């Protein structure tokens, strides 16, 4: 599900990248490119995990750990396409409502018991049970029809849905099956936060709250065995501390904050043992315009406002060239992205001309446009905690002032901002989204998704967009779906319910002893297959 992402905007502050980069291959480590088994990989977690229970997972860090302990029903590959996971094959009925999965008969849990279709059914039941509060995952199975879902035999299950949904198959990537014979004993919500029995390649050795999580490779793993013997997650909240730990070779990988990146990534000594990576993931930042606001409800006004965003200056001055402009809802790495839709050009004069033609002029000479007895003024809300976000809204404020628009910047903390936005109690807001691997933007722009029970908090209602979104959700033919999204990309760009600002790249540092590190366009380093499960270590840890 799409997340209104406070963490993301913090990430954006840390900035993120472009595929062009050249690190010198390290002379310190011999060019040993054949995978080797064993060793201890030390990863960094920006925050302690909350739970090891894959059904109630609630943070990115929980997922990082769970991905070693559990094998999802289906994997997604480097290009975000489905591939076999716990299920070795599947059939989807012609009406798109029945999914028949054939589980890998060799699959076992860490306690040695086989993974059965009944465990899949048990996990699905837990996900949709309101008492579980599986808030992160339940949305992926909201159309699940439990009454018609049935176990065919030990390794076959037929899962039914009330309506066909083109995005449904990929959602099975979030289904991490738990063994019924263990998870049914005890209180599901509270008893499995610190222990885990999964069907993944690793098993839990220990979890020390506030310090670390230690995993070990299963000797009896049924799938393709990964190379690394032990994986340690060290909890380091502070980016500077993590950077120092990476420098001292105490950890093998860490996200690098923007300022650190710009200061250090050209250091030849560090480049000998740290691989600096930049890549784009599925996220962007945007300004949401409240469509119920009389001023901002007019799409011509929104276009004029979009023309006041100095995109090039944002990319070069705020992100030092490590972000890219957005033309609409879809990012260039997605198949739904329509490359013919242009990015709206920075053009304050053009913006002024549009506003003048709509009757907005500065009659009293105070530098602010008026129309009748109204002045052109609105609040722009931004989240505290993101230095880049604050700088950005200040740049926007200065640019709009030149055109005669008075912007009042309001900085709020995450929870307060979310409440204001979801209550429609805002005029404009600078926010960020983390996107799903499937591009369906139903929750954001369909007119049935207004708050309080939806996320279309810009109150965008367009018959054409609704039609395109609905059709694409039901369309199981990928090339037809693509055509629908290309059209939608164009419609959204014209209507500007959001003004898309930039997609910032992620910046990572990885010790060069870690080999086989690949990035997925869209998912980055982790959570696709093989992703981090394909890594190996070239030498023993250097201390």
């Amino acid at each position: 599900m799409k997340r209104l992402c406070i963490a993301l905007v913090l990430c954006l502050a840390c900035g993120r990248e472009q595929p062009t980069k050249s690190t010198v291959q390290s002379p310190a480590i011999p060019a040993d490119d054949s995978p080797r088994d064993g060793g201890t990989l030390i990863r960094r977690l920006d925050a302690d995990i909350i739970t090891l229970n894959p059904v109630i997972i609630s943070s990115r860090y929980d997922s990082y750990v769970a991905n070693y302990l559990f094998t999802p029903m289906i994997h997604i590959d480097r290009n975000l396409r489905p591939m076999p996971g716990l299920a070795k094959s599947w059939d989807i009925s012609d009406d798109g409502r029945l999914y028949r999965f054939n589980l890998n008969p060799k699959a076992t849990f860490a306690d040695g018991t086989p993974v059965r279709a009944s465990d899949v059914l048990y996990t699905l039941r837990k996900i949709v049970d309101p008492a579980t509060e599986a808030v992160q995952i339940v949305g992926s199975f909201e159309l699940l029809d439990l009454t018609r879902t049935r176990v065919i035999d030990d390794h076959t299950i037929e899962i039914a849905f009330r309506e066909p949904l083109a995005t449904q198959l990929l959602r099975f990537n979030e289904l991490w099956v738990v063994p019924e014979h263990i998870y049914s004993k005890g209180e599901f919500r509270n008893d499995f936060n610190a222990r885990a029995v999964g069907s993944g390649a690793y098993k839990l050795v220990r979890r020390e709250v506030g310090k670390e999580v230690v995993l070990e490779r299963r000797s009896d793993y049924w799938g393709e065995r990964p190379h690394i013997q032990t994986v340690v997650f060290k909890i380091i909240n502070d980016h500077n501390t993590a950077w120092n730990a990476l420098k001292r070779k105490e950890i093998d990988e860490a996200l690098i904050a923007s300022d650190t990146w710009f200061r250090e990534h050209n250091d030849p000594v560090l480049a000998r043992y740290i691989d600096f990576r930049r890549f784009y993931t599925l996220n962007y930042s945007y300004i949401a315009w409240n469509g119920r606001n009389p001023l901002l409800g007019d799409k011509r006004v929104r276009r004029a406002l979009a023309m006041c965003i100095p995109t090039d200056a944002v990319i070069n001055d705020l992100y030092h060239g490590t972000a890219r402009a957005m033309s609409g809802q879809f990012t260039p790495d997605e198949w739904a992205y329509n490359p013919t839709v242009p990015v709206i050009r920075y053009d304050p004069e053009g913006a002024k001309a549009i506003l003048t033609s709509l009757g907005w002029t500065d009659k009293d000479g105070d530098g602010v446009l008026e129309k009748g007895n109204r002045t052109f003024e609105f609040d722009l809300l931004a989240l505290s905690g993101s230095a880049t976000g604050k700088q950005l809204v200040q740049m926007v404020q200065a640019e709009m002032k030149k055109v005669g628009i008075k912007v009042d910047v309001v900085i709020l903390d995450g929870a307060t901002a979310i409440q204001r936005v979801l209550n429609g109690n805002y005029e404009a807001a600078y926010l960020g989204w983390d996107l799903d691997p499937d591009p369906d933007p139903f929750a954001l722009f369909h007119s049935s998704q207004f708050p309080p029970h939806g996320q279309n908090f810009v109150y965008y209602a367009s018959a054409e967009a609704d039609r395109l979104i609905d059709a694409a959700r039901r369309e199981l033919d990928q090339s037809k779906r693509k055509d629908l999204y290309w059209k939608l990309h164009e419609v959204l760009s014209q209507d500007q319910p959001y003004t898309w600002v930039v997609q910032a790249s992620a910046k990572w540092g990885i010790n060069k002893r870690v080999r086989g590190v690949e990035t997925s366009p869209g998912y980055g380093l982790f959570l696709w297959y093989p992703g981090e499960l394909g890594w190996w270590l070239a030498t023993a840890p250097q201390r």
Partner: protein
Amino acid sequence: MAAYFIRRFLYAIFTFFGITVATFVLIHSVPGDPVTFYIGRAGIASIPKGTVERIRREYHLDQPLPVQYLYWLRGAVTLDFGRSVIDRRPVTERILEKLPNTLQLNLIAFALAAVIGIPIGLWSATRSGRPIERASAVFFFLLYSLPSFWVALLLMEVFSVRLGILPLFGMSSDQYTDIGAAARFTDRLRHLVLPVLTLMYAQLAIFARFSKSALTEVIRQDFITTARAKGAGERAVMWHHALRNALIPLITLLGLTIPYLISGSVIVEQIFQWDGVGLLYYDAILARDYPTVMGLTVATALITLFASVLSDVLYVFADPRVRLGEAGT
């Protein structure tokens, strides 16, 4: 005297309730609630209505505020502060897990700052106005004004990254569980050095300057002149006559500083990955984790009250006028 203590104690209880009510009202009047926290994490469209209502019911968010407070109070008297919104673990357990770490760090820093700072203050008082005392005053003001995150990063850069003689972060090494008690003790000490230094330097400056000014004030008084006139040695004048009278403001300072034992180390805990309550407090407030915020408030309030009762008791011993005054009423 007994009446004095009883009155102080009743004040303390009254203050305690005042603090809990005020915090309760404050945290609930900040926009957003635990449900917004879930929404921020998962997106509202994905949360079934039933779940939202369940969460509201569980935390009594559907009740009027005074009723919510009574629910909370009912739990609090049995030390049950409910379950955290973030991970559903009992708040008491979460706090008790981390509180000793914070207390350890802060008590050591506090004790060192007092033990080093107060003698420095006395030394400066005897040299009040001389160039060396002026220079030390400037030095301590500078020390006090250094931002702690900067000092922390500097210490880390020098001692851990460059010299490599002290651990970078954490409370213990990887092999902590496999080593003997003596080795564990040394290991913990090594991990304590940088966080304690970071916490200590500002407190040290406060103690040094505060005790200096308290003592300088006393030295100007007539009875010191009398003591000198009757031929008492300088050492006896300082330690016997002056210091005792300078204790009152120092006790006040002590009472004001102790509450920081819980909340004063957020930044240091974050930078050095010290697993204390600082980070817990910060995260709880951002997530509107009411039960955890209230639990930590009670812990802080108790320590604050302990500090105020402690300083009241110490006043009695330091200043006979307090005793006599009470006896006279």
